[in-house]
């Protein structure tokens, strides 16, 4: 073990570099974004599903909606409490959440996700009419 100091020195340097982002950013976590609800969304109180479900699963829900509408043409969603919704991102989701910049984008930017929904779907139907 003649090269002991080189080996351990190297390992320590490697660990320092590998963990650099963690200790450098410690205590500096960006605060989670505040989401603003529109008046319509506040008045409705509940979304298509519970808030917890929507927070965690809205992408799966939208994926399900997309396949159902595009592939099978089934466009009515009945949620567990029996309320019916037209399955449409532009006409149902964004009808209520018409503030994409303060609602969708804030969280997506925070989580650094870049969904390509808006390449085709019109992001603010109310502004355009």
């Amino acid at each position, binding site marked *: 073990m003649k090269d002991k100091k080189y080996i351990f020195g190297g390992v320590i340097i490697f660990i320092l570099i590998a963990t650099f982002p963690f200790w450098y950013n410690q205590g500096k976590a960006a605060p989670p974004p505040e989401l603003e609800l529109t008046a319509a969304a506040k008045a409705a109180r509940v979304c298509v599903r519970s808030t917890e479900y929507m927070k965690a699963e809205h992408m799966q829900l939208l994926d399900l909606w997309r396949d159902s509408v*595009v592939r*099978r*043409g089934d466009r009515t969603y009945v949620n567990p409490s029996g309320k019916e919704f*037209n399955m449409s991102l532009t006409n149902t989701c964004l009808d209520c959440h018409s503030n994409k910049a303060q609602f969708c984008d804030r969280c997506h930017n925070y989580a650094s996700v870049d969904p390509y929904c808006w390449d085709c779907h*019109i992001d*603010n139907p109310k502004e355009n009419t």
Partner: protein
Amino acid sequence: MDSSRRHVLQLLGLSSLALTARPVLNAFAKEAEHTEEPKAVIKPNKKALTAKQWAMVIDTRKFESADDVEPLVEACDTIHNVPHLKNKRHEIKWIWETHYHNAFPGKAGQFLSEAVEHTPFIVMCNHCENPPCVRACPTKATFKRESDGIVLMDFHRCIGCRFCMAACPFGARSFNYRDPRPFIKETNPKFPTRMKGVVEKCNFCAERLAEGQLPACVEVSEGKLTFGDLYDPESEVRELIRTHYTIRRKQVLGTEPSVYYIV
């Protein structure tokens, strides 16, 4: 290895215990299911129009000039956010007019009746019963919908390879060589636009049928176009096909187009 009588008996006992474990676990699993919240259900719209195979009959005798065609194309383009690109090679077409000898190559004689010679022929996707575009698509982005026979596009899935365009014998598909948004005069917020790099075509107004409305071109055509179920002997389209001589585009290719023309 120790294979004493005692050891073998122990093993046997343990195995028989393991066999009884499964039904017990199943019983527990069933109990857990009851506490799960009720599932959401997806169903078709109550007002939706349905058919086995949607079809269209175009009465070309009622078309005299481009003025008869324009409102139909206009209605379709505004509803579906179809861009108007000046460059012919970038053009996006869902429904358009053409000459008889382009619509029906092989059927045009050297000399034609004056009426046929000057009539604008409306053409669009034929929603074939045996669609070659669907077979060509490597991602199943285009598919024939089982429920009503419409040949549809899933734009989310289109990778823009244009095999379908090569496969379609009717030139019914267009490719977005450019971002279409700047070329849409008035955007209909209820319908999505497309993006650069996807193929698009007529969808027989699947989104309108789902809400109980007839296709836009049929609605504004004032009876020049008729829409209905090809497999319903009582339908309006079948009645027209029964009582008139109709032709279809490039029938010899065997794609079985669902758009019929009364000449």
